């Protein structure tokens, strides 16, 4: 279970100091599909960074089964991300000089996963293994990014606007892959989006506004990627 308790986060200093996260409290259960929903500038990406251990809050606790990662050292946070967290970003962040297989191996090697080629096949990338990222379409690059994240066998998968750079068809395909793989593997998904339609796929919808959690709703009837609007 992931718990955020009284999280506050500031950026800047002096006159330009402003609060990005204001007293955030939330709980996400293991195996949940949670969406952090909000407009641009609402603090949703910062919250994702704090929950995933990419950034530390200025105050408050981020608890993973009672371990507070907010007080972890840099090395402890690196180790924590290595063993528990997977990331998928809107910009993919693949290594341009490496081919698809090596990019996915980047995730697999961290946890000693030698069976990662199954993920490559499952995501339909078998034919593209020798290609470099700039030879792939946006959807294919995002699939490589998903494969890299899943090859780490994460307990929690964080996604920051994963379909932001994709067209509707590819976006639905990518979301469908994620939902399917979550159903098969049971990891927790925490996805940031500004798209209300995508939020309908989640069990838990955390709405954010001006750095605060404005609402947390439990969705009893999540839709699949092809049922949601776009």
């Amino acid at each position, binding site marked *: 279970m992931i718990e955020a308790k009284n999280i506050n986060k500031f950026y800047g200093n002096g006159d330009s100091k402003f609060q990005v996260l204001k007293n955030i409290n939330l709980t996400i259960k293991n195996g949940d599909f949670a969406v952090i929903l909000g407009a641009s500038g609402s603090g949703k990406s910062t919250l994702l*960074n704090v929950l995933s251990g*990419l*950034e530390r809050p200025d105050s408050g606790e981020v608890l993973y089964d009672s371990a507070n990662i907010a007080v972890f050292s*840099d*090395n402890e946070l*690196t*180790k*924590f*991300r*290595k*063993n528990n*967290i997977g*990331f998928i*970003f809107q*910009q993919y*962040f693949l*290594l*341009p*000089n*490496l*081919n698809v*297989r*090596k990019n996915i*191996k*980047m*995730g*697999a*090697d*961290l946890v000693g996963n030698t069976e990662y080629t199954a993920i490559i096949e499952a995501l339909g990338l078998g034919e593209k*293994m*020798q290609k*470099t*990222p*700039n*030879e792939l379409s946006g959807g294919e690059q995002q699939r490589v990014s998903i494969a*890299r994240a899943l090859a*780490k066998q994460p307990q929690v998968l964080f996604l920051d606007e994963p379909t932001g750079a994709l067209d509707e068809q590819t976006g639905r395909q990518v979301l469908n892959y994620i939902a399917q793989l979550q159903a098969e593997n049971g990891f927790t998904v925490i996805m940031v989006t500004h798209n209300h339609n995508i939020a309908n796929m989640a069990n838990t919808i955390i709405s954010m506004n001006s750095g605060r959690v404005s609402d947390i709703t439990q969705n009893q009837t999540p839709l699949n990627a092809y049922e949601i609007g776009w």
Partner: protein
Amino acid sequence: MVISIKDAAKLFGISIIACCAVLVCTLFLNFYFDIMQIKDLIVSQQAIAMYEAQISQVKVVCIATGGGLLLTSVVMLLFYIKNYIDTHKKSLGILKAIGYPNIKIAKHFWVFGLSVLLGSAIGFAGAFCLMPAFYAQQNSGSILPEVTINFHVSILFCLVILPAVLFAALAIIYAYFKLKRAVLALLKDSPSDTSTPKKHKDNGKKQLPFIKELQKSTLSQKKSLVFFVIFSAFCFSAMTQMSFKMRELSSEMMGAMMLLIGLALALSTLFIAITAVVRGNFKTIAIMRTLGYSQKECRYAILDGYRPMSYIGFAVGTLYQHFMLQIAVDVVFADFDNIPEYNFDFIAMFVSLAIFIAIYELLIFFYSEKTKKLSVKEIMLD
């Protein structure tokens, strides 16, 4: 403006080299012009021999120092511009995409000539400060008639103004040709050193661990960085060892000057090379850190691969300076009296190697610490 003065200021390495080259060349050329003016007053056999020796020395020093440092500056300038275009290719791609022609963007690269102007102006002024002591040293036995210091405008023009203009022009021309790429190639996140991505046929091969594969790939894809690391180690090795030896082969003053110049040049090239290595791999390190690779693993995959290259550069530099000094002693100083016999200086080599390893490892450690807090957020904001 595409490039700010701040960007040009980062080329301080070229300023240092220009300063050293102009300092030495101004000292010797000014002395050469001044000694030429008293040529008719030199009558004794001893003075004529001394005069001819001085003329030979001026030619050798100006060609070796000026030529060598000029070549180094050109390599550094071209490398820096290439690196600048690679790291700013998105901004440059956007300018091209909205319709700016290559030449209009390239014209802004003239500011890189300022680093040469600054360095050479300081070197020129510094030479005039050292000139009285230098003239006294060159005519220490008062064998020649008194040589008075004169100001020669032609030296100012040839060593300060002309190089700045030429380097500014070179920067514009080189940038113009480097910008001759498709807009999409600049905008897309494609490998910078290869215009067409290589096919990575690795089926059936024994698969290496990821960080080993990344190390190999980093070296093979960023060849210009590899070259620059080798080049900087080469400069360090050749300059420091040559400087140590010059203390024996020339005067104390000349030796000290060469040592200072050698160390300044060696340090600045090495610093620029390692800075470029880290900057060139900034994104990869950030992604690795985000995924959970430790600092040690990032260092192994990205930075450690350059170490053997630097030792290769050091070895080549050692051989180069040995043969250069051998030729200098055999050919140039052949007619000079009291020139000690030249032998390979193992002590100088081991001292230089020890200094090189210490500085290299310190710089790597410094940058490794700097990359500790890198996260993907840094490159998101890029």
